[in-house]
């Protein structure tokens, strides 16, 4: 019993860490700086969606003993499987480059050395961790460190709470001339950054790595609700901080350098380093999750040996994919685009491909051959259809909006 609750605690911590990444930090900061509290509702809707999706993918894997990628290939065939795989490869290579950039900027903020110099070494650091570290360390290390995110909440309290004039922006955001498109673009990007398919592939594979079974369903449900809820709280806190600190200064948070100021105002030097630590922890966790999610996805889809707890020689192709994918991200990152802008763009690309990644869910979650009597009920099916409709809408508007607004 004690062990099960320890697992639940760790699961919550992991989910909290997995929720926040360069994409959520970028979109939350920019949302608060430009529209006050006016985009918090999008984060709330996306949080409900990701809670439902994580619960479903965990239940599916625990009961069927199959990962999401394996099931897509088995149920829909290899040709169909290539669709979500290709969309994942495009979107997540951009996101991985953004995460590596986020870690580099965090180190740069600590040391004063240009983040470009850190970039290749950061990629090497992630490669070594992904290559050699056991699954438990990858899952829990950055996530525990990511709890520093709660300092955002402390920042709001230290600044005296949410100022009264800001509260009406929750339901009535103030638009400057010509910023409606930007508002819609950020909404799509928030949706894409919160419902990151890599999190689902990683979570599903993690459940197999930890040998989940029907007895793990409580752990799964608590992890999904409390963990994602905590993560969402971190994201919303950043929106509020950006609205309190950056908006009155006319700083629109186009770079991570601008965003770092939100914690310096309430806590001075300690606050600025706390922000750098949050950036380091969340981006390290997310970079590991992205690189592993892609390697899991490919290895499971192609029927290769896979597993982070196996020696590299025992799962050679799984580890080779990891290496190649990291190299692709390094090439993208070396172009020199600001990681925050890259994360925003990657979130838009994810939003564009979201329906492809999520559509198989509806069918798999209603298949008694996989789930026995644990298939979706009426409520979860209606919610799933709602999420898919939203994902289609977001996909349709995301690319035109990215072009119109010049990427936010």
């Amino acid at each position, binding site marked *: 019993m004690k062990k099960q609750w320890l697992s639940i605690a760790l699961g919550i911590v992991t989910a909290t860490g997995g929720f926040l990444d360069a994409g959520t930090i970028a979109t939350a900061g920019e949302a608060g700086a430009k529209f006050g509290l006016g985009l918090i509702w999008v984060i709330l809707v996306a949080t409900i969606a990701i809670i439902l999706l994580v619960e479903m993918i965990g239940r599916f894997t625990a009961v069927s003993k199959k990962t999401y990628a394996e099931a897509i290939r088995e149920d829909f065939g290899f040709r169909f499987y290539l669709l979500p795989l290709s969309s994942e490869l495009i979107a997540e290579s951009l996101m991985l480059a953004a995460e590596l950039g986020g870690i580099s900027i965090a180190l740069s903020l600590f040391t004063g050395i240009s983040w470009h110099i850190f970039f290749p070494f950061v990629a090497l650091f992630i490669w070594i961790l992904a290559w050699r570290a056991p699954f438990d360390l990858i899952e829990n290390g950055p996530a525990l460190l990511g709890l520093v995110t709660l300092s955002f909440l402390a920042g709001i309290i230290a600044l005296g709470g949410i100022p009264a004039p800001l509260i009406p922006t929750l339901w009535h955001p103030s638009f400057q001339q010509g910023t409606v498109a*930007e508002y819609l673009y950020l909404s799509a990007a928030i949706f894409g950054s919160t419902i990151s398919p890599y999190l689902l592939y990683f979570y599903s594979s993690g459940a197999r790595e930890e040998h989940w079974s029907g007895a793990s369903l409580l752990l799964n449900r608590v992890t999904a609700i409390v963990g994602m809820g905590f993560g969402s709280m971190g994201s919303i806190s950043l929106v509020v901080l950006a609205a309190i600190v950056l908006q009155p200064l*006319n*700083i*629109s948070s186009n770079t991570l*350098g601008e965003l770092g100021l939100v914690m*310096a*105002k309430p806590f001075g*030097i300690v606050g*600025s380093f706390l922000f750098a630590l949050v950036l380091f922890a969340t981006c390290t966790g997310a970079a590991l999750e992205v690189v592993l999610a892609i390697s899991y996805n490919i290895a499971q889809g192609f029927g290769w040996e896979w597993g982070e707890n196996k020696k590299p020689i025992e799962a050679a192709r799984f580890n080779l994919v990891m290496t190649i994918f990291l190299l692709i991200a390094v090439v993208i990152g070396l172009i020199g685009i600001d990681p925050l802008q890259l994360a925003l763009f990657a979130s838009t690309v994810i939003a564009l491909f979201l329906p492809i990644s999520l559509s198989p869910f509806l069918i798999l979650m209603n298949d008694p051959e996989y789930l026995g009597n644990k298939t979706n009920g009426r409520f979860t099916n209606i919610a799933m259809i709602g999420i898919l409709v939203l994902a289609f809408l977001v996909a349709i508007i995301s690319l035109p909006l990215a072009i119109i607004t010049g990427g936010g």
Partner: protein
Amino acid sequence: MWQKIGMVLVLLVLFSLSTACTFTETAFTRTANNAGSAFAAAEVTLTYAHEGKITYSYAASSVVIFQSELSGTDQTLAAQGAANIHTLQRLLALFSPAIQVIDAPCLSNMCNWRKQREILNRASQAFLQAGSS
């Protein structure tokens, strides 16, 4: 039938064109706004560094990021063109000293950081004003 569909499409295009100005910013105002925001951020960074709210090395690495964000902005603005040529000339005149501050910020007690802050403030105000007009 097709005539009606064509009519609806034409009306939709006209509606989009007529509302486009409230729906999205022009490229020029977007560039001006982004530059204004970056200059404002640089000003606050410089102030915080001298007030002891952030370390000089933290400020230095932030400024490097602003530098890449602002690089080439003057050429972009000139290429995009403003509705008013005087506005463009004024912005370009303010951009030059401000970018010099970004390239060599005063991050010690040995230089006049208040003067640099003033230059950044003037530039950020002008760019933000141009971006909102």
